[in-house]
């Protein structure tokens, strides 16, 4: 039996851990899933500490939550932070089968645990007499030294493997800026610099495209990576409408005839094709 304090701690942490796990499972965006998992891992780390595994608790926080989850987040950013899974299942029967298997597995495990005679808990007070870290160190460098060395080799191999997998050999000489400029003039496609994002758009974030004088979107103003991911944020229709009103009122004030008034491109095709935030949800 454990102390009441630990019991309270357990129930709080268990709820957080399960909630985090379910959140990871159900969140549509990878970045949210990663954050939920981080919460679960932190609560697990506290559980380790509460059970006398001080070293593991700290390692869990430093290595898992600190390093591995950061790596996850880094990759999520690389792949596209807002890219969300469609919740529509494509494999026939996969979801039902997965849920059935999961429930069955969980029931089996819990039933197995319930049936097992696990009443006696020795506790770690004896094993941790010299301190948890010292006890682990004694085991690692004596009994498990061979496994430890092999694990070291495994880590080195993994590091090299990751480098090999992500490394791209440069086939051509890297072009200098001068060569790129010369090439641009030669191709005569876009001789002046690309339009900067946010111009006329009343917003200067990199994913907000510039607006051309007639109010249409200049997609060239957004960087290629975002364009490719489809992560161009739209200028809201409301803003465009207000701009058109402004033009109108100016013309009224000046008393221009309707023929002399500037034509605002009425149905903005380009804007409608770009998905707005609300539509994507």
């Amino acid at each position: 039996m454990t102390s009441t304090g630990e019991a309270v701690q357990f129930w709080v942490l268990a709820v957080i851990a399960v909630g985090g796990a379910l959140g990871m499972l159900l969140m549509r965006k990878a970045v949210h899933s990663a954050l939920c998992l981080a919460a679960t891992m932190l609560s697990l780390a506290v559980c380790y500490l509460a059970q006398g595994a001080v070293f593991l608790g700290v390692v869990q926080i430093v290595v898992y939550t600190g390093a591995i989850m950061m790596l996850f987040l880094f990759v999520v950013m690389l792949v596209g932070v807002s890219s969300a899974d469609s919740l529509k299942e494509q494999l026939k029967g996969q979801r039902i089968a997965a849920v059935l298997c999961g429930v069955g597995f969980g029931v089996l495990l819990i039933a197995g645990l319930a049936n097992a005679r696990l009443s006696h808990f020795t506790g770690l007070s004896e094993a941790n007499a010299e301190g948890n870290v010292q006890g682990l160190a004694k085991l690692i460098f004596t009994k498990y030294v061979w496994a430890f060395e092999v694990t070291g080799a495994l880590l080195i191999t993994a590091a090299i493997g990751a480098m090999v997998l992500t490394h791209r050999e440069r086939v051509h000489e890297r072009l200098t800026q001068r060569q790129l400029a010369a090439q641009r003039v030669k191709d005569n496609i876009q001789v002046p610099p690309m339009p900067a994002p946010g111009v006329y758009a009343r917003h200067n974030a990199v994913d907000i495209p510039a607006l051309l004088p007639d109010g249409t979107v200049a997609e060239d103003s957004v960087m290629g990576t975002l364009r490719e991911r489809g992560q161009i944020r739209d200028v809201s229709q409301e803003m465009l409408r207000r701009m058109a009103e402004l033009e109108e009122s100016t013309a009224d004030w000046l008393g221009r005839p309707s023929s002399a008034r500037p034509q605002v491109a009425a149905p903005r095709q380009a804007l409608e094709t770009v998905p707005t935030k609300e539509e994507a949800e």
Partner: protein
Amino acid sequence: MNSLIPLLVAAPLAGAALLLLGGRALDRFGHWIATALAALSCAFGLVLFFDMLGRDTEHRAVTERLFSWIPVGGFRADVSFQLDQLSIVFVLLITGVGTLIHLYSVGYMAHDERRRRFFAYLNLFLAAMLILVLADNYLLLYVGWEGVGLASYLLIGFWQHKPSAATAAKKAFIVNRVGDMGLSIAIMLMFAEFGSFAFRPVFSAAGDASEGKLTAIALMLLLAACGKSAQVPLQSWLGDAMEGPTPVSALIHAATMVTAGVYLITRSASIFNLAPDAQTAVVVVGAVTLLFGAIVGCAKDDIKKALAGSTMSQIGYMIMAAGLGPIGYAFAIMHLVTHGFFKAGLFLGAGSVMHGMNDEVNMRHYGGLRKYMPWTFATFMAGYLAIIGFPFLSGFFSKDKIIEAALAKGGTEGWILGTCALVGAAVTAFYMTRVVLLTFFGEKRWQPDAEGHRPHPHESPRTMVIPMVVLTFGSLFAGGLFSLGDSFLHFLEPVTGHEEGHAPLSAFAVSAIATVCMAAGVGLAWLKYGRKPVPVQAPRGSLLTRAARRDLLQDDFNHAVLVRPGSALAATLVFFDSKGLDGFVNGLAAAIGGLSGRLRRIQTGYVRTYALSMFGGTLVLVASTLLMRSV
């Protein structure tokens, strides 16, 4: 001098190779090359013959070993030639008649655009036939045996554009195969029994073998002889073989190849002499065929088919004589040689008549041709008189000797055989007289051919007439020459052996009875075909006549007994194969294919599906572990 023996074979073989490989360049004069090489071979034969005559009787047989063909362990097959008295007789007949027929073909095939090929085949035939008679072992003999079969096939089907010729060639080949099967089985039996198939060791060891085994070997040899010599029951191909060009019929299907069976039996005398049951079978086959052929010959209106029936009948005489044992071998060979002369002459005459009559073969459309073809008529008459056994012509001597030998067999058997032979002689006279009367006498019954050309009978060119004239001499005088002091008998005796038969009748009486029979046959034929005009359309005729026109129902018999059950068996097997075996195999394949097609769906290629199955597997494992623990 012995080195001439291989050259004997090589000359026509080289001719065949040259003409077949030489191409169109040889079209213009290739036939003369072939004829010259045949003549050369004949000259070699003559040289060897006179060389042989110059030696003692004991030293006349010579062997010339050419090379070892298949030396494997104890098994030894040599290409080795043996020239003895029996072989030289055949060599002279083959090369002599062969050369004459080459010459004849020069005229006969003058307008055929594939003439070069024809002569190549003729040369090939000569070479194969010479190998057959010169071989000193059964295996080499088999090579020649198959070679003549091939040449016969090629020449019967020479006008392969005619479906009838192509079918006839196929028929001849297939029926011959049945006989060839017999020969190959006989050779295998010999090897199993004696460990060799060379003549000398086999014959010397034959005395030690059991009679049962010898009978088996002899019966298989008889089967082979029946196939090649068109004897009952394998006789059906010879009539159809007349689809080939007439010189072919004369050379192969009358004078030489079809007598190979007689040669085989005579050569294997040592085996047959020790197997009396097999000899009886030989005699029965000979006697039956003798009458069979003669009856068929009476009914045919096609001149060549009538002669083919005659050939069958005459070879029946020879086989019967050969079956009589040592009292008959020499006479069989003697009749073979004389028959070779007069039957070749008759066929060449028939060819000459056809040549003059727009290739008409139906005798009912001939008539009165003696004035238009005097040379053909004269030579044909000589052959005719010889074959019916007109006194003191070739056939008279040889056939009477056979009748005598048959009677000398003794007892009831002898009387039956003698009677058969005499009846055969009468029927022979009947059908040959019929042929002559229908062809050369009576009124003209000429009919226009398919294109409406009326025939203008004329004498054939000189290249055709000369061979007929030469053969006429053989028809007239060969028999007498051979009988002069029994010279032929004494010449062959060292090879075939001879035993003087003791006929219950004297030689003179036999001759007299045979002549009376012959005269009766001639008279009957004159009554039927000479006295009154012959109808152009054949009358319906009696039951026997109609059966004989259909070759005494032999084809119907074969069809009913062999072809029909064979087809039925094949159809049944096909049914079982396609429904049973194929059904099983295909069903199995389809089942596996279908199952695989369904199983393949499991392999979706989606990693999550695989993960799901892994997870499901884990579930099952955990569940079973818990179950095992709880039990």
